[in-house]
């Protein structure tokens, strides 16, 4: 729900409530006021009749359908004005109607008269109708004003906020620019903008530092590791006993693993930092075929049956270097986690790439193998980052990556969307 719509609806609900409550009080006040005024009017009428009796007109001559004059015993106290509702026959309408009756007694020339005067009451329905009508008019006027002015004005007030939202949406690490906002007249917006400016500056700084760190760490670890490699290589070429050879080999192997891990981690970091913008669409079919050729000797040596179904000219937005790593990793896995006489099936079309291969059934959950440093085999030359890299590549390019096993069939699927 948009903020403006929310504000409008809340405002409308509040107006409705206010009108309802207001209407109720207006209804009550209006009723009371009408009754009071009517009573005053009846009182004046009674007073006028009393005056006429005083002037000597016999009361019998005055009586009409609205007027009632009774004689009371003289010794009774003079009654004050009393007003009450009553149902009485109404001539012009020829039916019983709710009427207001005012009565008062007067002592005129030794006689005590009670004069009662009736009048039609303004009916409750009429008052309700009036009140509801008035309130509805007010409500519609409000609605029109809301539509014309409130929304426009709110939009105008919220414009800096909308602008801020847009800026945040467009923020990315590649452009390397912290957000900058125009000064707003609303201090809350200025606070928000200030905070966002500071935050994006901090984000970019951290991002740069992480980037530098990942570059530096690969340099800082690789240099000493390279020195160690070189020393061991030179050592291998000196006279050595078998025991020494095994020690050297073990050291050399483990040093190689350090190389592998650092190289893979720095690649992962680069992918996470989105350092590889897709320059243009590349022909994945060509890259796939090229990589299959590069590995074809291995496939033959492993006595694997290869079945390919590759549509030509599958264009994907991806960095060619990354595409090679991805394919190389997947094909490598398909060859490695296979058995002699097994098979590999490769399928590529414009929607997806599927690589299926035979292999032993897994002990681990397939989704766990996608995580870093999780591996099924205990082969020392594997560091367990292959699928993590493929997964990260797919995340970077917003492909969906799936890895599933069905007893002895391993399937990796990449949907390009």
């Amino acid at each position, binding site marked *: 729900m948009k903020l403006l719509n929310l504000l409008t609806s809340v405002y409308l609900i509040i107006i409705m409530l206010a009108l309802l409550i207001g209407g109720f009080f207006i209804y009550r006040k209006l009723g009371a006021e009408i009754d009071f005024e009517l009573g005053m009017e009846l009182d004046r009428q009674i007073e006028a009749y009393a005056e006429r009796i005083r002037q000597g007109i016999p009361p019998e001559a005055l009586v009409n359908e609205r007027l009632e004059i009774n004689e009371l015993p003289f010794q009774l106290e003079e009654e004050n004005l009393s007003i009450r509702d009553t149902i009485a026959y109404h001539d012009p309408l020829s039916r019983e109607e709710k009427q207001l009756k005012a009565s008062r007694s007067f002592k005129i020339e030794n006689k005590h008269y009670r004069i009662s005067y009736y009048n039609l009451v303004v009916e409750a329905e009429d008052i309700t109708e009036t009140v509801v009508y008035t309130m509805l008019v007010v409500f519609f006027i409000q609605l029109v004003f809301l539509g014309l002015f409130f929304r426009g004005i709110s939009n105008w007030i919220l414009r800096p906020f909308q602008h801020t939202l847009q800026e945040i949406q467009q923020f990315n690490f590649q452009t390397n620019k912290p957000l900058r906002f125009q000064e707003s007249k609303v201090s809350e917006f200025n606070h928000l903008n200030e905070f966002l400016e500071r935050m994006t500056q901090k984000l970019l700084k951290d991002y740069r530092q992480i980037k530098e760190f990942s*570059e530096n760490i*690969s*340099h800082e670890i*690789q*240099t000493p*590791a*390279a*020195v160690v*490699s*070189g*020393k061991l*290589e*030179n050592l*291998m*070429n000196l006279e*050595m006993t*078998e025991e020494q*050879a*095994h020690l*050297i*080999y073990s050291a*050399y*192997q483990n040093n*190689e693993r350090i*190389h*592998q891990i650092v*190289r*893979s981690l*720095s690649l992962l970091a680069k992918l996470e930092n989105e350092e*590889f913008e897709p320059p243009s669409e590349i022909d994945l079919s060509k890259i796939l075929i090229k990589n299959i050729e*590069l590995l074809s*000797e*291995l496939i033959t*040596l492993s006595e694997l049956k290869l079945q390919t179904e590759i549509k030509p000219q599958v264009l994907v937005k991806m960095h060619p*270097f990354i595409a090679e*790593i991805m394919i*190389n*990793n997947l094909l*490598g*896995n398909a*060859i*490695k986690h296979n058995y002699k006489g097994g098979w590999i099936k490769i399928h590529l079309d414009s929607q997806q790439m599927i690589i299926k291969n035979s292999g032993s059934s897994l002990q681990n959950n397939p989704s766990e193998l996608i995580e870093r440093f999780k591996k099924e085999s205990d*082969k020392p*030359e*594997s*560091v367990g*980052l*292959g699928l993590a890299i493929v997964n990260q590549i797919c995340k970077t390019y917003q492909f969906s990556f799936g890895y599933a096993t069905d007893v002895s069939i391993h399937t990796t699927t990449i949907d390009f969307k």
Partner: protein
Amino acid sequence: MKILLIEDNQELTQNIIQYLSHEGIICEVAGNLFDAQDKILSFEYDCVLLDLMLPDGNGLSFLEILKKLKVRPNVLIISAKNSLDDKINGLDLGADDYLPKPFHLSELLARLKAIYRRSKLSGSDEVNFNEIAIQLQNLQAKVHGKPLDLTKKEFDLLVFLITNKNRVLGKNAIAQHLWGDYTDNLPSFDFIYQHIKNLRKKIAEAGGNDYLTTVYGIGYKFGEPQS
């Protein structure tokens, strides 16, 4: 062959000098760009091994200086800054090859010799070892003049072995030479064994000597059998 090594890490420098000197390669060292400029202007080199992160600047700027020389040496960039941009920039600026650190010394030697062969011996692009003759241009290997039927990888392997003759080559070095950096998920050692076995067989069938020895399971060595 005479090369100039521009590298600030002394240990690495020592490793390289030690490995290359066995091949009769004369290696002079400059620890920074200033010394390197001095040397390149006073002497002639066949090849420059250039590190990019140097104490007094980026090695890429050195490529500009090399451009102005009358006789331009070949350049092999060796850098730990394994970034794609550096590789592309370096090759654009006239470097002949780019080898990311950490590298195997055997790989360095192979690349160095390949560059050297390409530029200096472009006519007679041949590698010989006793009865084995390899023509790199048309990917042909002959034993006693008889052509061997080698696969692409077997051919690469043979060239790599002969280039590093009499040296122990670790399995990892061979794997990376044949399949590149991302050999992580290949059961490469089994394949190396297979390739070596096939290569041996093919050379023997053509009447060649068996020059390949296994060194305590570390790796392989190609050279005159020691008596």
